[in-house]
Structure formats: structure tokens, C-alpha cells
């Protein structure tokens, strides 16, 4: 049991519990905070494994940007501050069964084949990583760049509010039962063109066996 093993175990315990709390805590904001702890523990794991650059990247990208983004998401969707019923109609039976099964399978298999291998850790400096990144991995790197731009534009398109232009989202009458105040519509914006909206086929129409 060398020092790195001890560190690793500690990180595993810390990260694991944080992750569990993320998914089980009743308060959504608490989950977000526990997510931060979990991701930090991952960064710690990277450091333990000698991937120093990755660790800082993890901290910067995930903890810095992604969690903040998620918090914004929670805020925008007016998530209730207090506790809310966490479990969906599926109940806990299926998720526990599946994830438990998954975990059991993975653990047995991992210990089966990697039980005894030990890692001699060679710290990888950012310089070495950088050198490798821009020549052999140039193509994936560029492709990834393109991917990020596409994701960015996609997110903007979806998330943008629509009153400014284009067809206004008339509430779908069949969902009239859902309590929602109508989005303020000013009649002037879009003249004649009516979108080929889905004329509300009666629910039964849609739902046929």
C-alpha cells in the first residue's frame, strides 16, 4: 500500500460519496454543489495518475464552466429552491437494478483482468502533451474544433427566444390541461405566413395501438 494507493483510495471514497449525493440529494442546488466536489475529486485522481495538465483542464472546464452552466440552467428553469420529489414515475426499482447490475459486472470483470497490475506513474508534463497534440492528433483536434462550433450554434438556435421572428408557439390546445400563462404575443410581428403547425390531431388519434 504505497502512498499513491492511499491517495487514490481517499479520492475514490470522497468522489464516490459526492457523486452519490449528487444523484440522491432532494435539493437540486445541493446536487449541483456536490457535483463540483465530485469533479474536483476526479481532478485529484488525474494528479495522482500523473496527468497534471488534464487535472487543471478538468478543474477549469468542468468545475469552472460546466457546473456554472448547469447552475444557470437550474435558475432559468425556475427550479424550486426547496426539496422536490426526486423520483420519476419509474420509481427506484429499475434504476437500482440496472446500475447495481452494471457496477457488479464491471467490478468483477475489472478485478478479473486487472486485479494485480500496478502502474508505474510517469508524470506527463503539459509540454510533452502539447507536442503530441498538434501533430499526430492534429486531425481529431481540428475536427473537435469544428464540433464545438457546431454545438455552440446548435445550442444558440435551440435556446433563442422566438418572439422576435418566425411563428409564435401557440400553446398546443391538447395540453390545455397544463397550467401555464400564455406567452405574451404581439399580433403585429408575423403577417400572413402561418407555419404548417401540427394541427392538433386529437390525442386518441395520435395514440393508437
Amino acid at each position, binding site marked *: 500500500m504505497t502512498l499513491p494507493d492511499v491517495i487514490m483510495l481517499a479520492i475514490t471514497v470522497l468522489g464516490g460519496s459526492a457523486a452519490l449525493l449528487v444523484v440522491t440529494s432532494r435539493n437540486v442546488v445541493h446536487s449541483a454543489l456536490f457535483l463540483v466536489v465530485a469533479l474536483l475529486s476526479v481532478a485529484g485522481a488525474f494528479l495522482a495518475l500523473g496527468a497534471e495538465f488534464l487535472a487543471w483542464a478538468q478543474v477549469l472546464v468542468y468545475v469552472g464552466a460546466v457546473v456554472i452552466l448547469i447552475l444557470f440552467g437550474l435558475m432559468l428553469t425556475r427550479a424550486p429552491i426547496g426539496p422536490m420529489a426526486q423520483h420519476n*414515475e*419509474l*420509481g427506484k*426499482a*429499475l434504476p437500482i437494478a*440496472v446500475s447495481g447490475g452494471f457496477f457488479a*459486472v464491471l467490478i468483477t470483470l475489472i478485478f478479473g483482468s486487472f486485479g494485480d497490475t500496478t502502474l508505474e506513474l510517469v508524470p506527463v508534463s503539459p509540454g510533452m502533451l502539447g507536442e503530441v497534440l498538434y501533430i499526430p492528433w492534429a486531425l481529431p483536434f481540428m475536427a473537435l474544433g469544428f464540433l464545438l462550433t457546431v454545438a455552440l450554434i446548435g445550442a444558440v438556435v435551440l435556446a433563442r427566444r422566438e418572439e422576435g421572428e418566425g411563428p409564435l408557439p401557440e400553446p398546443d390546445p391538447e395540453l390545455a390541461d397544463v397550467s401555464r400563462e400564455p406567452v405574451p404575443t404581439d399580433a403585429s410581428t408575423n403577417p400572413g405566413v402561418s407555419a404548417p403547425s401540427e394541427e392538433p390531431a386529437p390525442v386518441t388519434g395520435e395514440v393508437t395501438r
Partner: protein
Amino acid sequence: MSQVAWLIPALPAASALAIIFFGKRMPKGGAEVGILSLAIAFVLAVVVAIEVFSANVAAVADGGEAFLTTVGVELFPISAEAGINAGIRIDGLSAMMFLLVTFVSLMVHIYSLGYMAGEERFTWYFGLLSLFTMSMLILVVADNLMLLLVGWELVGVCSFLLIGFWWEQKSNSNAAIKAFLTTKSGDVGLVVGVITLWSVFGTFDISQIIAGVEAGAYNEGLLTFGLVALVLGVVGKSAQFPLHTWLPDAMAGPTPVSALIHAATMVTAGVFLIARLYPVYSAVPAAQATIAVIGAITLLMAGLLALVQDDVKKVLAYSTISQLGYMVAALGFSYTAGIFHLFTHGFFKALLFLGAGSIIHAAHSNNMSDMGGLAKVMPRTFYTFLIGSLALMAVPPLAGFWSKDEILVEAAAAGAYTGNLVLVLGAIGGAITVFYMTRVLYLVFAGEFRGYGHPHESPQTMTAPPVALAVPSLFIGLINLPLPAFQPYAFSAWTMFSTEYWVTHPIEFSPLIAFVAVTLAAAGFVVGRLMYRDAPVGDADPMLRLGLPTRILQEKYYLDRLYTDLITLTLVRDKLGAASVWLNDRVIDRIVYLAGAGTVGFGRGLYDVADQKGIDGLVNGVGQSTRWSGGRLRLAQSGNVQLYAGAMLAGVVVLAVVFAVG
């Protein structure tokens, strides 16, 4: 001349076409073309006959071969080596048939001018007559069995069309169909027989078949089966027992038709066929025995039936069946006797039918009960009818005597079981024939006229042909006088197929048999005269008061009821037909429909049960979800994405285990 004998069938064929297509526009409605063509044909027939007969006589004289010319051409190949060919075969027999058919057909044509005058489909009638004569002549002249079969069936169809000429009344078309179907069922035997002969001898050609039989290299059992099958065809066509029921009903057609078809030509086709294949039959004793027996039964059975008929044409019809029985029986052991009786019978039976036609025409009814006393009113018809009856009754100098007597002589000569049977039944049959003919003579000509209206003599065209036919009825018998001196020039020589047969089977005269036959005939005449002198009609008719025998005879031994009602109508058409349709629509169709519907049903079932009960059930069984009320759960595609994800990952886990183990 015989080389070009194919002209004889060609003439009526040409006239038939001419009449059918241009008949309407001809002055006499096509009749003149018919008569002209047949007249020429008759002349040609006489020329050919002279050539053939003189050749035969010469052959008998100097011991040469019998006259035979065959001219044939291959119509079309049916396999690399075999083919169907059409050709003519002229020998004594066919020459004789030429004479008989053309002459009788000519007489009927002339007679029909008067009889069918004013008929709506006059032209169509004459077209059919020519068509019929053509097919009969094809049958006569054919050199191979296949062409004979073609002629045979064509004759059948023409008789169907002629019998059902007045097809407005359902009874006529019923009779026509009955005639056709009965002969057609007989034809089953013919077809099977022809095919068997083909498979035994490898050819249809008659001369090769005969050569094959003489050579002796053939499968005995199969040949017997073939010949017996042919006999079934003969029984159907020549109305022998048991397939005779159609002939009396065929009287529904116009009388000249009956005269031509049901006296002289068509019904003799069967007899002609046996005569044509006589050498083959003589080689197979079993076949000859069957013929003799059938002939004997038929002649007696039909004779009895003739006793109780009221319709004059029906009497003649049954008498024809009886005479055909004689011919068939004769062919059981003697070639010449059989065909001689055929020859003579053709003339006087045609005469009787034409006479009957005039009588019916005059009395406006077929039934003898409303005739009587016509001798005075229709002298010419009476005398000719009398001559015909006397010939039929085998009164010595006339034709009937010589031919029927010859049959009895040959039967006696043959001896053995069949010979004696034919002799005895023949004699009795002779007596019965005389009895029912005297009954007819008295009921029709003697006493007072019982019908309504006043009968008068038929016009010239309807009395001339009977007169013309009376001449041969009187003298034709003499051409075959059984005197040894006369025989080399006699009919037997003319029509022999091989000289050595003519030598080994001479025509003798036995005074004893002649005497017995004549006395029996005389007895029959006396009894007949006694009973019917004052024309007792209706239920006064002695023959109708015999109780059970009368009823059996009137019901025609219940054969008719057996055939028409039981077999054809009820069993075949209604029962079997309906059963097969039921089988078709209900059973087979249903099975297939179920198979088809089955897959759809199976699909739906699988979809309902396995697809959504199965997977959903499993997933929910595991989860003890509270909110999952029955209503919400329906199908695997429940719309809840987490259920999808769950199902998917469950699948992954299961597969991972399988993989890990695998």
C-alpha cells in the same frame, strides 16, 4: 378411280360450307346445293363400287388378293417418330358403305325438301345434313383409327345439333344432350380402345394393325382389353344394351333426320368399326363372344320394348336397335352376314322412317292411337310402307329374309354356346319383329281414322324417295343368293376383305333354318292379325293390359330412370357438383384464408402479448412502482424516455454478461 375417292367426303363438305355461308341467298335456301353434291357423290360411289366389286370378283376367280388401296398424308408429328396422318382406305366394305350412305342421304335430302318446307332455319338444316354426311363419309373412308375417331365424334356432334334442331322446347335440347352424353360416355371406351391398340401395335394405321395381328407378335391380354373397350364405344354409338336409352328419345328430331341418322348411317358406325377391324376381332375369341352376347341380348330386349310403344317413330327406333343387335351378333362369327344385314337394313329402315314421316305429317301426330284407316287415303305411302315392313319381317323374297336368314345360318354353323344363343334368340326375335310390325300396320292403316282433321297423301317429293327405296328393299336380297354357283359373283365376294376368308367362310343356305324362321314369322303374323284386326287402341290394346310385364316394358326396364334421374341429374350434377364447390369454397379456401388471416392475427397477437406484456411486465415486475397505475401502462413504447434508457441499459448489461461468458 379409287385413288380419287377422297372426293366423296369432300363434296358434302364443300356443300356444307357453301350452304352455311351462302345458303340464305340461294333460291331454294341451299337445299339444291346439298342435293346436287350428294347426287354427284352417289354417282362417284357407284363408279368406285363397280371398280372395287369387279376387282374382287376377279380376285375370287383367279385366287388373287382382295381389292385394297390406301392413300395417306402425315398431318402433323406428335413425336420424333410418331405422327397423326389422314388418309383414305378403299376396300369392299367402304365401297358398300359409300353406296348405302350416299344413296340414303340423297333420298333424305329430297324428302326433306317437302318435310322441312317453311321451316324457319331451313338453310341451317340442310347445312347440318351435308355436314353430317361429310363426317359419316370421313368415318367410313378413314385409313387410321385416329381419323376414324375424329369422324366418329364429328358424327356425334352433328347428331346432337340435328336432334336438338328445334331447341326452343327444353325437351328437344334435353334429348339432344342425352344423346350426345350417352354416346360420349361410350366414346370413353373408344378412346381407351384406340389408345390401347396404338400402344400394342405402335400405330393407328388399320392395315398395319391387321398385319400386326396376322404376324401374331402382340400382348394378348392388352389386345383383348383394347377390343372390349372398343366394344363399349360401339355399344354407345350403335345404341346397344345398356347404352341404348338415347335412341328413342332422339326421335325428338325431325323425322328425315331419324331416317338418315338413326336408321342407315350413324347407328351403323359401331357395326362398321367392328367390320373394319374384323381380322383383329377374329383373332381374339373372347372379344367375339362379347359381341355376340351383347348383340343377342339387345335384339331380344329391344324387340320386346317395341311391342308397347304408341309412338310410331319409337316403334321403328326400337326395331332399329333390335336389328342392330342382329348385326352385332352376326359379326360375332361371320363378317359377310353382319355387313349384308347392315346393307339391306339401311334401305328398308330408311324407307319405313320416311313413310312414318309422311304418316305423321298427314295425321299431325306421332301416336298410332289417333291414326288408322290411312291405307285408303295414302295409297302410295301405304304400299311403300308395306314393302318396307315385309322386308323387315324377313318375308322370303325380300331383302330382310336373305340377310336375317343368313345370320341364323351362320349362327347355327358357328355352333358352340354363343352360336346357339344367337340362333334361338334370333328366331324368337324374328317372330316378335313380325308381331309388332303387324300391330303397326293394322293400327296405322286398317280401320277408321281416329285423329282430327282429314289426312291426305303427301306431296310428290315425299312419296318419290320411299318408292325409290322400295326397289332395293325388294330386290337387294338377291345379290347374295346362297347358291354356291352364284356366290363368286355375289355380295360376299364384292365386300370380302381377303380371298382366303371368302373361301373358308362360304355362304350356304340351310332349308331347315329357313323353314323354321318362316313358320315362326307366319305364326307371329297370324297372332298379330288376330289381336289387332279391328285396331284396339288405348287401354283396349291387348299388349297394354298384360299388367306387370307391360309396366316393366313401358318403364324401359327402369334404365332411363336409373341413368337420367339417378346418375346424371341427381348424383353428378347436384350432389357431386355441389359437394365439390362446397369443398372448394368452404374447406380449401377457408384453410388458406385462415393461414393468411392467421399471420395477421399472429402478428397482432404477438404484438399485443409478447411485445408489450412481455417486456413491460418484466420491467414493472422488478420495480414496485407506486404511481404506475394500470391505465398508464400500455405498450413498450410508453413514451417515457427513461423507461427506454432503462430497457436499453438492461439489455446492455444482459448482453455484457452473455459476452463475458461467451
